[in-house]
């Protein structure tokens, strides 16, 4: 393609974005748009998949059968969400295996929140309430993203997330209204997950390298700081109902802006975890690699079985 032809295509593409038209897999798109989408969607997918680990940790120790089936259903949903997202990314021309390898080798990132351990049962409540709550704020905004398959995946995911947040909040509510030990356990989980949940929205807008172009192409719809503020505004009254205290002395309702002001995030901790030095980074990648390697014979056996089935069908037909 000549330079002029590419320029013309770029112009048409920009117009379509400006008109809020969705971009579909076979449409022409700038290479950078393709790459940015692959990066964002695959990271999102990896987060769903790695996110199963901290919760999976409590499946066998859930305090009742109902809690156990609920947690199983939630973890299964996370696997499903990962699959929707991998499929969406695959439409951009990258293979599932390639994406997965980027995650296994640590080349691709996933949400840092999953590098924190789940020490008590209350953590499962805090994760549903705060981590899924933060994810919902982000994902609702992404239902308007410009890439069609990603937007459709988000719609499907958002429909399922609400259950995740509610079951978590209910766990917190019951603990917060339980014995002294249970209340303390709930408060402790909130103390540990509050700041990491705020970090889920990513660096400050001023420090976010991808935000400008991403917003211009409507891959991202709202900035990190905007989404973070929306989350804080939603969650603070919910904490009040629980009777728990958010671990931020600077948290205060601002009459003028109509929003909650909150304290400074520990960005040093954020970057440390992003760079791989969080509490569980190593465990998470080891667990995923172990599962991948030990599952190899299963994947191969399934391929062999599939081929046999095909041969049988051919024989039957002839």
């Amino acid at each position, binding site marked *: 393609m000549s330079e002029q032809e590419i320029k013309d295509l770029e112009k048409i593409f920009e117009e379509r974005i400006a008109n809020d038209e969705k971009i*579909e*897999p*076979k*449409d*022409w798109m700038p290479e950078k748009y393709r790459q940015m989408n692959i990066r964002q969607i695959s990271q999102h997918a990896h987060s769903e998949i790695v996110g199963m680990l901290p919760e999976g940790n409590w499946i066998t120790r859930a305090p009742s059968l109902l809690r156990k089936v609920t947690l199983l*259903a939630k973890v*299964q*949903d996370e696997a*499903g969400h990962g*699959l*929707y997202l991998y*499929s969406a990314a*695959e*439409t*951009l*021309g*990258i*293979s*599932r*295996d*390639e994406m997965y390898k980027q995650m296994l080798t640590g080349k691709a990132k996933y949400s840092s929140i999953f590098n924190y351990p789940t020490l008590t049962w209350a953590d499962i409540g805090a994760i549903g309430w705060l981590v899924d709550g933060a994810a919902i704020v982000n994902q609702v905004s992404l239902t308007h993203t410009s890439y069609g398959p990603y937007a*459709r*995946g988000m719609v*499907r995911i958002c429909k*399922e997330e609400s259950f995740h947040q509610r079951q978590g909040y209910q766990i917190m509510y019951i603990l917060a209204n339980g014995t002294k030990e249970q209340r303390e356990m709930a408060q402790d989980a909130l103390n540990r997950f509050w700041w990491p949940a705020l970090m889920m929205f990513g660096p400050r807008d001023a420090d976010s390298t991808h935000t400008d172009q991403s917003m211009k192409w409507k891959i991202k719809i709202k900035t990190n700081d905007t989404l973070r503020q929306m989350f804080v505004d939603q969650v603070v009254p919910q904490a009040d109902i629980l009777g728990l205290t958010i671990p931020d002395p600077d948290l205060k309702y601002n009459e003028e802006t109509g929003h909650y002001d909150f304290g400074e995030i520990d960005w040093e901790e954020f970057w440390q975890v992003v760079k791989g030095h969080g509490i569980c980074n190593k465990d998470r990648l080891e667990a995923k690699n172990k599962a991948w390697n030990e599952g190899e014979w299963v*994947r*191969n056996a*399934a*391929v062999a*079985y*599939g*081929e046999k*089935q*095909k041969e049988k069908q051919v024989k039957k037909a002839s």
Partner: protein
Amino acid sequence: MSDNKKSNKNEWPLWEVFVRSKNGLEHRHFGSLHATDTEMALKNARDVYTRRMEGVSIWVVESKNIHASKPEKNAEFFEPAEDKIYRHPTFYELPDGVKNM
């Protein structure tokens, strides 16, 4: 659906999933997944796309068997319909007073 040129040999084939959400409605494209045979594709589709009773019937077809029109050729491909405004009811003006038409 994907035009996957980079997929490696050991990767399970890609399938497209179509779900009828209830009788009376058509099957609609829901998404895609990987599976090694039709039975696995159907079961995976059930587990991935209908965990909350979203469907009463599922079709799966290997993605490589789907042929698509090319968006860059849209102008000429869909051109035959473009100048046939007489196919639309609004083309025909009705005298005042005509109802239910």
